[in-house]
Structures are given as structure tokens and as C-alpha cells.
């Protein structure tokens, strides 16, 4: 199931990739292995797969060991961490590899191979790596877990058997013939095959659609949410699906978003397989949607919202909106046809009066000539202005026990008391979002005249409500704040959220993808609004169903895959969004490096921690699972996606870090070292008592470091891990943490950026401004001296421990004139010949920015040169509000011909900078590339 999800996305990819893959046997193998792994989501299966596939494939000792570990892990962890976590990891890895292979068969792969010795193919190496990482991580976790839950392991084995049986049955029966066909093909093609193997058991699931009709389909018992979601969207003929999601009701009033990256079964547990298809992210400007059909579904959702009272509006607005509904449904007013109580069949408002219906009819007459699509657009233009449009409300109490409502929306967090807005925290103002038990915290950037950030706590009805709110915040922030298409890195960072992250596309990305939609406007039949208007779920306002927990795309892959597809479709070969996840690493060097690093990290971390596998699992698995497996999850995640892991780490680093979403389950954290980054992973686990999310980009890198450190320290921290602790610990831990990992993360980020850029740049000037301070000086010195070391001493970066740089994710903007791209880290590579100017910024503290001017204490400028780079370091010390701040700006000019890998150089520079200035945070990276084409983007 989970595998299925991945498989679907993969499938999409595959077709595209297939060509190349086929061309290259290795990639196919990898994919196959992946599939196998996916198919064998069950722990046993996984173990088998891993063992069978990787073992044969990889003769290398590490791989075998890993395999063994995996098997063991899988058994132990299997239940906790669904196979798919592992699988996902494998997927991600495999995909990246595949892509990498395809595009640049490269050195990177070699590196990986070298580590793993992938006998079968490139894919295997990746797998191996993943596996290894998992093994390591898992090993620790497993040990712990095993001891804890030996019984669980057995079940897992059983599952494996079942799965096997299922596979057999499937092969014979082929209930889903089509799929099986695919699977057959898959065996060759790989991707599709995943489904086939597991399918034996199917479950009928029902989805209530927005028009009130019900969609029924059979799913594999282990299907991931993405599979169902994709089926529904296919049924609806909906392409712009990132705004939507599937809900299931825990209780009559507790809505949860189905996480597409996790197995459905694990999310709904014993609940019936009954879902509702809903809008998850309300687009602030519906007119920017590409297709009318998308607007139509949004209209249907809003009709529900309005009729149920969730979206309050005035009498006049009720009447106006109702009149557009009539126009869309019934066309022009016809005095002969439309008379009497024809209107009463529609529900426009919770309390519909005769007077209102008369007003509706009156207004309906004025809309003559509007097509249904135009009427929908008018409806949306008015609905979007409602103050509660797109606001996901959650009941809470403030610190004094007063009942309030927390509203999550595209712009931030709103605080209501009764109907009154009593406070508002825009995303840029929020440094960190976290929850602990039933408490939800936001850390606020200091105001202009304030020196210290403040943390505001709210009491939610229970732990699950707190986590639900937290996830909604993470998702909304990621979806809406990471605007530029180039932000994949950001997305990564943001999404990272230690445990849970939003793995889907951001709004910017989905818009980008939507631009590629090239099909005639699909015909769709409008259902009677009567049905629609009857609120399916007249949920009370208080409930925040909207908050979507799930990540749209399955963890990294789906998104990446989609992105990739789009790109291909677009014909843009370059970096595009795929970057988010390591998997998609079209870009050569950056991704590769990243992946490698990630792998290394994973392996390293895993080795010591053994939590990796768990982490992976956690990330993939849904919340529920996570709860059980808290610790394990972390480790697993790491293995899965390097980038993600980094992100996750970033989260940990909250203090230093800026944005990353850090969700550390205290437990999980402790258990798993590095790996949070992976998708939903740790954060998602319901049990997780603690979750953190830092909205800043750069933070991610830092976070990663922290996480690693944390992992090491995990045990200590476990108890402490409250949000604050997390932050603190990271700092402390940082020193301990292996530098390598740190570097890697930095690199990843950097690389990502680079990747985005397209790489071929003649001149790179990076300016990294760092805030914070004391260490900066030292760093600078080093940098200067180091210049020789690194091609690009990116020293610029500085990691600040003290203040979370707060940088909003937004900060980092990569603008490629030519490419929007996806900044996924993967494609760092380099030198193609394009001229681009890329500016990376990680906003620092807004406060500082806004800020008040400080008093300049000192300033110095240091210049150093190496063969291809010139580094200018400008250090300034300021005193603001009694706090001294050291800002180091490094300008690195990389000059060279096309052969120079600027991205790499940049990445190194940043890495070094971070290493050198562990206490500093990188608040801003501006990359200017001057190439022949001379494209410039700034941001």
C-alpha cells in the first residue's frame, strides 16, 4: 500500500523514466529492487526483499550486513515502521540514482556504489546505502525496540508471510488485472510491479465526493493514502489536486487528513475505510487556478462550508453567493421555468429564510449571460474575501484558561476569542511551532523594540488535537510560504519538519505544474447544488478539519516524481523541483553530492545510532505508527531522504536553525539520531509528544546538524526534549556532532540552490550574511585563511546558535531567469552553460531586518583569493537593543570556465563556512551567476 503510493508516483515517473531506464539496465534493476522493497512493505517482506534483492545484488559486505540488519530491523521495526518507510527510502534513493544514472550516470553514483558496491545496478547501490543506513539506525532502534517489542517482530514476520501469500494469490488471481498486467510489466519495468506482489488482500474503501456522491474502489490492504487519493482524482478528472485531500473522521467531529505517504490502514486503524474528499488548502486567489474543473470543486467545497456555517457570511453575501450557485447550476433565470420555490431546493445558508431566497432569486436575474464557469469564478471572487475563508479553526485555551480558537490559514496563525480576532501571527513572525503533549507553542520573533523572542503556549483539548494543529501549521506554512518554484530546497527545509513534514507540492510548485497542463478543458457534469449544499459534515466551526496532516505527495518521492514528470513534459531537463527529495536528483552534482552525503550521514549516523531504520519508518509511516515507534522513526527517516533528513536535523537545531520544521518527538529523537528529515516520519507519529517546526530555510541545515548531535545525545535529551530543550541541545550537541554530517547538510542546501540554478555559471558570487555572533569573527578568520582550502570557501555561512534565524522559508529565493526549477538538492552539478543569477536568501530574523538599526561597533573586510575563487569577508559588529550582533558577509567570486562546478564549490564554501562558524547561522545566501545568457534573479 505504502508502496503503492510510491509506486503510483513512481509509475508516472517510470513511464518517462522507463525509456531511459530500459536503456540502462541498472536503473531498471534498481527500480525493481525498489519495487520489491515496496511490495514487501510488510516487515517480513521488506526483510526478504532487502535481503534477497540487495544481498544478491550487492556482494559488498556492507550491503549484506545492511541487509541482515534490515531484515532484523524490518522484523523488529516492521510493525512500528511500516515497510514502506524502508521502501520509501529505497525509493527515494533508487529514484535519485535512477535519475542520476539516466542523466549523468555519474560519479556520484560511483561514490555511492563505492560505498555499497551495488552488484546489481546503480539502484542496488542506492538501496544498499539506504539499507545500510537503515540498518545502522534500525540496529540501535531495533535493539531497543526488539527488546521492547519482541512480540511485534513476530507479527511482522507473519505479515510478511501473509504478504507473500498475497503476492502469490495476486499473481494467480490478479484481482486487479490491470494492475497485475502492470506488475508483469513492472517486473520488467519495475514500478508497477509493486502493487501486484502485495495485492492479495483488498479492502473496499468509500470516498464521499464534494458533490455528495460516493466513490468506491478496492484497495490493497496496505495501500498508501496516495493511491486512494490518486484514484479519486483520476475519477474526478482532477489534475490540480494539490489543494485537496482526503479526510477521515476519528470521532464524529475529529477530522484527520489522510497522509498520502503512509499506509491507509495505519492511519485509520480500526476505523472504517470511509473518507471524504475535501479542499485542504484554500487557494487565496482561486482565479489563479488553471482549470475550471478545479474551481468547480472548490466551489462545491465552499458551498458546503457556507451551508454548514463553517464559513460565516452575512445575509447579503449569502444571497449573492447563492445567486451565483443558481446561475452556475441552472443557467439564466427563466421566468417560466424558474418560479415558485425552485430555490428552496438549494441550500445557501445554515438558516435559510424566505427573504433570503427571494433575494437570491432577485440577484439571480442579474447574472444573465454568465456561463457556469463564470458564475463559479464570481462565486469564488466573493467567497475568497470572507474573513474566514480558508481558515482552519481549532479549539484551544490560552494560558489563562480562556476559550479561544486558533485559526490556521495561508498567512499565518489567527487567534480568536468568540468571533473576535484578538491576535495574529503571520508566518514570518513565527520562529518555531511546536507541541508537547496537549500544549501547542509558537515562538515569536522579537518585535522591533524587543530583544528576545517569546514563546506563546496554548492548551489544546488533548495531545492529538495539539499534534493535529501542529501538523496543519506545518503544512500550511510549507504550502503557502514556500512560494517560488525554485524553492524546492526551501520546501525541503521547511518540509523537513523533523518528523512530519509536508511532502506535497507547495502552492508555487503546483501552480508551476498547473501551467504545464495541456488538455482541453475537461467536460464535467455539475451536480445539483441541492445535494452539494447539504453539508455532508456540518462540522462545527471549531473543528479544524482542514488542517491536513498528510503530506500531499508521498514523502519525497511522489512530489519529486510529479515534478520530474512535469519537467519532462515541459521539456525542461534541468533542475526542476524534483529536487526536494534526494530521489529526484536530476541535477547532477548537487544532488549526487547531497545524496552521497546523506547516505554517508545516514550510514554514519546509523552505524552509531542504529536508529536510522526506525527513523525512516517513522517518517514514512503515519502518525499512528509513529506513536508506537517513536524512537525508531527518527533513524529511518534519515536513510530515506538525505535532504529530508537534513531538514529533520535542521529542525532539531531549532535554535541555531532557522526554519526547519523540527518535530522531535522526544522519544523518537532519543531513539533515532539523525533521521527525522524523512517525510512525515517522526512528527507524524501520533504518540509523539513533541513536535517542532521551524519555519526557516537555512535553519534546516543547522537543524540537521543538531539532529545528528541530538541523535547522539538522544538519550539525554529524550527527557528533555521539550521544544526548548531541543533547541538548546542542538547547540550544545553540535560540537559533538560529527562535522561531516554538518557539512553535508550545508552542502545539501547549498547544492540544492546551485542545482536550481542550473549550474553553468561563470561567476558565482555568494553572499552569505550571517547573524549572530561571536563566533562569526572566528569563522571569518578561518574563512579567510581557508580560502585556499575550499574552492569556494563558502565560509559565508554561519550558523548561529542563539537565535533561530528565523528566517522564513521565503527568504530563500532562487530565481533563475530561465528556469524556475526545482531546487532540489540533487542537481547541483554544475556546469552547463547557462548564465544565471541566483540569489539565495534565508531571511534572518525579521525583527532584525525590520529592525531597528543598531549601533555599529566595528567593521572589517578581509579578502582572500585562491585559484578560482576570491573571497571577501566583511564582518560587522552591531549592537542592537543591548544585544551585540556580528554579521559576517562573505562574497565569493568563482571564476572559471564551464567546467568548474560552481554548485559544488558553492556547496563546499557553505559547508566550510558552517563548519568554521558553528555558532553562526546563515541567514542569507545570494548567488549571482553571470553566464553567457546572463539571467538574473534576485531575491
Amino acid at each position: 500500500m505504502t508502496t503503492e503510493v510510491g509506486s503510483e508516483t513512481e509509475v508516472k515517473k517510470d513511464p518517462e523514466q522507463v525509456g531511459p531506464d530500459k536503456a540502462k539496465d541498472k536503473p531498471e534493476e534498481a527500480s525493481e529492487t525498489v519495487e520489491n522493497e515496496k511490495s514487501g512493505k510488510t516487515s517480513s517482506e521488506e526483510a526478504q526483499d532487502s535481503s534477497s534483492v540487495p544481498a544478491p545484488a550487492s556482494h559488498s559486505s556492507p550491503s549484506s550486513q545492511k541487509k541482515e540488519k534490515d531484515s532484523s530491523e524490518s522484523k523488529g521495526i516492521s510493525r512500528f515502521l511500516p515497510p514502506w518507510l524502508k521502501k520509501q527510502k529505497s525509493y527515494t534513493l533508487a529514484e535519485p540514482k535512477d535519475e542520476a544514472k539516466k542523466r549523468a550516470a555519474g560519479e556520484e553514483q560511483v561514490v555511492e556504489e563505492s560505498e555499497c558496491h551495488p552488484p546489481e545496478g546503480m539502484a542496488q547501490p542506492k538501496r544498499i546505502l539506504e539499507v545500510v543506513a537503515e540498518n545502522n539506525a534500525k540496529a540501535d532502534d531495533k535493539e531497543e525496540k526488539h527488546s521492547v517489542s519482541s512480540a511485534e517482530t513476530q507479527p511482522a514476520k507473519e505479515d510478511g508471510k501473509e504478504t507473500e501469500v498475497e503476492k502469490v494469490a495476486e499473481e494467480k488471481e490478479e484481482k486487479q488485472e490491470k494492475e497485475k498486467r502492470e506488475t508483469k510489466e513492472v517486473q520488467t519495468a519495475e514500478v508497477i510491479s509493486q502493487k501486484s506482489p502485495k495485492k492479495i488482500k483488498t479492502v473496499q474503501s468509500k470516498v464521499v465526493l464534494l458533490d455528495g456522491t460516493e466513490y468506491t474502489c478496492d484497495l490493497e490492504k496496505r495501500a498508501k493514502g496516495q493511491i486512494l487519493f490518486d484514484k479519486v482524482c483520476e475519477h474526478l478528472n482532477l489534475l490540480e489536486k494539490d489543494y485537496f485531500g482526503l479526510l477521515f473522521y476519528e470521532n464524529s467531529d475529529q477530522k484527520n487528513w489522510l497522509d498520502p505517504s503512509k499506509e491507509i490502514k495505519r492511519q485509520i486503524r480500526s476505523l472504517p475505510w470511509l473518507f471524504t474528499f475535501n479542499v485542504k488548502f484554500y487557494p487565496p486567489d482561486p482565479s489563479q487556478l488553471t482549470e475550471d474543473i478545479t474551481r468547480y470543486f472548490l466551489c462545491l467545497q465552499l458551498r458546503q462550508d457556507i451551508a454548514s456555517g463553517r464559513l460565516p457570511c452575512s445575509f447579503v453575501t449569502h444571497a449573492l453567493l447563492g445567486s451565483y450557485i443558481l446561475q452556475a447550476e441552472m443557467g439564466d433565470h427563466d421566468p417560466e421555468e424558474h418560479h415558485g420555490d425552485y430555490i428552496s431546493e438549494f441550500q445557501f445558508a445554515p438558516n435559510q429564510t424566505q427573504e433570503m431566497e427571494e433575494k437570491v432569486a432577485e440577484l439571480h436575474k442579474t447574472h444573465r449571460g454568465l456561463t457556469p464557469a463564470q458564475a463559479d469564478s464570481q462565486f469564488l471572487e466573493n467567497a475568497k474575501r470572507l474573513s474566514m475563508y480558508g481558515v482552519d479553526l481549532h479549539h484551544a485555551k490560552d494560558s489563562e484558561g480562556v476559550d479561544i480558537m486558533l485559526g490556521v490559514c495561508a498567512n499565518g496563525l489567527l487567534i480568536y476569542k468568540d468571533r473576535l480576532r484578538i491576535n495574529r501571527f503571520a508566518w514570518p513572525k513565527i520562529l518555531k511551532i511546536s507541541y508537547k503533549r496537549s500544549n501547542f507553542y509558537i515562538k515569536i520573533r522579537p518585535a522591533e523594540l524587543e530583544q528576545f523572542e517569546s514563546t506563546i503556549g496554548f492548551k489544546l483539548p488533548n495531545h492529538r488535537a495539539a499534534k493535529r494543529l501542529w501538523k496543519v501549521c506545518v503544512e500550511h506554512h510549507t504550502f503557502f510560504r514556500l512560494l517560488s518554484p525554485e524553492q524546492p530546497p526551501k520546501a525541503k527545509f521547511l518540509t523537513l519538519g523533523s518528523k512530519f513534514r509536508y511532502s506535497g507540492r507547495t502552492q508555487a510548485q503546483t501552480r508551476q505544474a498547473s501551467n504545464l497542463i495541456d488538455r482541453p478543458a475537461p467536460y464535467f457534469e455539475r451536480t445539483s447544488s441541492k445535494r452539494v449544499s447539504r453539508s455532508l459534515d456540518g462540522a462545527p466551526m471549531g473543528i479544524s478539519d482542514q488542517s491536513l496532516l498528510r503530506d500531499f505527495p508521498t514523502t519525497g518521492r511522489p512530489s519529486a516524481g510529479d515534478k520530474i514528470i512535469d519537467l519532462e513534459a515541459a521539456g525542461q531537463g534541468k533542475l526542476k523541483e524534483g529536487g526536494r527529495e534526494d530521489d529526484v536528483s536530476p541535477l547532477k552534482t548537487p544532488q549526487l553530492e547531497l545524496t552521497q552525503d546523506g547516505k554517508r550521514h545516514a550510514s554514519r549516523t546509523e552505524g552509531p545510532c542504529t536508529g536510522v531504520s526506525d527513523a525512516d519508518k517513522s517518517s514514512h509511516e503515519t502518525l499512528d505508527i509513529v506513536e508506537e515507534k517513536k524512537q525508531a522513526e527518527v533513524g529511518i527517516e534519515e536513510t530515506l531522504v538525505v535532504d529530508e533528513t537534513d531538514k529533520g536535523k535542521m529542525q532539531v537545531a531549532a535554535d541555531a536553525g532557522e526554519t526547519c520544521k523540527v518535530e522531535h518527538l522526544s522519544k523518537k529523537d532519543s531513539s533515532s539520531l539523525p533521521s527525522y528529515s524523512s517525510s512525515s516520519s517522526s512528527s507524524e507519529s501520533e504518540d509523539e509528544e513533541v513536535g517542532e517546526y521551524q519555519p526557516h530555510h537555512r535553519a534546516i541545515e543547522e537543524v540537521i546538524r543538531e539532529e545528528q548531535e541530538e541523535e547522539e545525545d538522544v538519550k539525554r535529551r529524550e527527557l528533555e526534549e521539550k521544544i526548548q530543550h531541543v533547541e538548546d541541545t542542538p547547540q550544545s550537541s553540535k560540537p559533538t556532532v560529527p562535522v561531516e554530517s554538518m557539512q553535508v547538510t550545508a552542502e545539501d542546501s547549498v547544492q540544492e540552490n546551485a542545482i536550481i540554478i542550473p549550474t553553468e555559471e561563470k561567476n558565482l558570487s555568494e553572499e552569505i550574511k550571517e547573524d549572530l555572533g561571536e563566533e562569526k569573527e572566528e569563522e571569518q578568520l578561518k574563512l579567510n585563511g581557508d580560502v585556499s582550502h575550499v574552492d569556494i570557501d563558502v565560509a559565508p555561512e554561519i550558523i548561529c546558535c542563539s537565535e533561530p534565524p528565523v528566517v522564513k522559508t521565503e527568504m530563500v529565493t532562487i530565481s533563475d531567469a530561465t528556469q524556475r526549477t526545482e531546487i532540489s538538492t540533487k542537481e547541483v552539478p554544475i556546469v552547463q552553460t547557462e548564465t544565471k543569477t541566483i540569489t539565495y536568501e534565508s531571511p534572518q530574523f525579521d525583527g532584525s531586518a525590520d529592525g531597528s538599526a543598531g549601533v555599529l561597533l566595528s567593521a572589517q573586510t578581509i579578502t582572500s583569493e585562491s585559484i578560482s575563487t576570491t573571497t571577501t569577508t566583511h564582518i560587522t559588529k552591531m549592537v542592537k537593543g543591548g544585544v551585540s550582533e556580528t554579521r559576517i558577509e562573505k562574497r565569493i567570486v568563482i571564476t572559471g570556465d564551464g567546467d568548474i562546478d560552481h554548485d559544488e564549490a558553492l556547496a563546499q564554501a557553505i559547508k566550510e563556512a558552517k563548519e568554521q562558524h558553528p555558532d553562526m547561522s546563515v541567514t542569507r545566501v545570494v548567488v549571482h551567476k553571470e553566464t553567457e545568457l546572463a539571467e538574473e534573479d534576485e531575491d
Partner: protein
Amino acid sequence: MAGLGGGPGAFGRCTHAVVRALPESLCRQALRSAAGPEVDFARAEREHQLYVGVLRGKLGLRVLELPADESLPDCVFVEDAAVVCEETALLTRPGAPSRRKEVEAMKRVLESLNLNIVEMVDENATLDGGDVLFTGREFFVGLSKRTNQRGAEILADTFKDYAVSTVPVHDSLHLKSFCSMAGPNLIAIGSSEAAQKALKTMQQMSDHRYDKLTVPDDAAANCIYLNIPSKGHVLLHRAPEEYPESAKVFEKLKDHMLIPIANTELEKVDGALTCCSVLINKTSEL
């Protein structure tokens, strides 16, 4: 289509204005936050007539003038008795008990305009229209001595389309004692610490970014913006004779038709420009 204010472009549109003559009792009995010189009734009347004349004659509004009521010394300040937004009017429950009856006449005149009338019947609620700032996108309600949380809640219930945010007001009578809208997205704000603090609060609470027009004098920050089809942006502001420095700031608004109006007498009893009228935009004729 009256939907939600008709969009940003419709802000300041106005067809009708409700005003009320001032009673002689105002001079001695009107509530005032601080002791000071007595109101020169004759001059106050002249200023008020000029004010009404601008609305009626210069701007072409249909002005509905209520007669003075000597038993209601503050009745000239009609703004406090009703909040009208689009087709809906909320009759308030003024914070000062002596002013509660002012609402009755207001109710009658608004009913004559065929507006949707909502009355504030909750005896725990108080709301002065002077505490209500409508920006075209949302409401800000000052929580002052005259307006309480419950009153603000009722306002929010009345105008459900809009966000209603509360702003603490401590040092002034009303929220609009130091601010007002000077344009579709422009908030005129006084320079006092309290005014600036309130502005920050409003900025934080809003999803929108407003431009601000800071004037040296808090009282001068209360101005009246209108969007008159034949005249474009119109701004009634305090005369240069009263607040020369603030007037200079207004004079920088090149796109606005500026109309200075003196309000020296009513200011003695805390009256500001917006206090003396309720502006209504009737899009559909009766």
C-alpha cells in the same frame, strides 16, 4: 453586486449621510473627557453647518438631518449611534448611559433607508461607533471606556463577512480619536505613542498591508475619506488654522480633493470630524 463591499475600488463610496443638529445643551452638558473652555454654541453651529454644507452641496450627498434633542446633549455625534456597512446597519448601545436614547432617532432614519437593521439588545454590550474603524477590508474595534468586548462581538456577528479585530484604547475616548481612513488602503494615524501603538496592533492583526499617513496631531488624524464618482478621492480634514503641521501632511496627498473643515468648538467636547455623520452607500434604490 454588492458582494463584500464591491471590492477595494468601492471603498468610500457614499450616497447618503445622516447628521443631527446640535442642541444648546451641548455647551454645558455634553460629556467631555477634560475640562476646558466652554463651547461657543454659535460658532459650533456655524462649523457644523459648513460641515453639512460640504456633504450636501459640495459632494452631492443626500443628507438626512435629524433635529436636535435638548435632552441628548451629545446627539450631534451621530456616528456613535450606528455602524453602517453596505446594506446593514448596526444600532449600537452607546457606552455612556446618557446617550442610549440617541439610537432611537437613528433607527427611524435608517429604517427609512431600507437598510437591514440590527439592534444591540444585549445589556452587557456597549459600543460606540467612534470605536469602529472600517477599512474596507475589515473592522477594527477599539476596546475603550465606551466599548466593550461584548459590543465588539455583536459587531462581528453582524458583519460576518469581515474580520473584526480588537484594539485596546486607553488614553483616548475612542479608537478614531487618533486615526481614520484617509484612502482606500490608507490609515491616517496620529503621532502620539498611544496612536502608534494602536497602529502597530492593527498592522499585526491584519492580513492586509495598509499604507499609513502619520500626522503630528492625533485629533487631525480623524478625517473623512469619500469616493465621489464625479470627484474621485475626497478628503475632509482639519483646517490649517487648527493643525497647521498636520494640514501640511494632508496637502501632500496629490490625488485627493482636500477640503479643510474647522471643528474647533465640538472638539472641546471630544468631537471629531467623523463623529458628526453616518455615511451610507445605498447601491440599490428603495
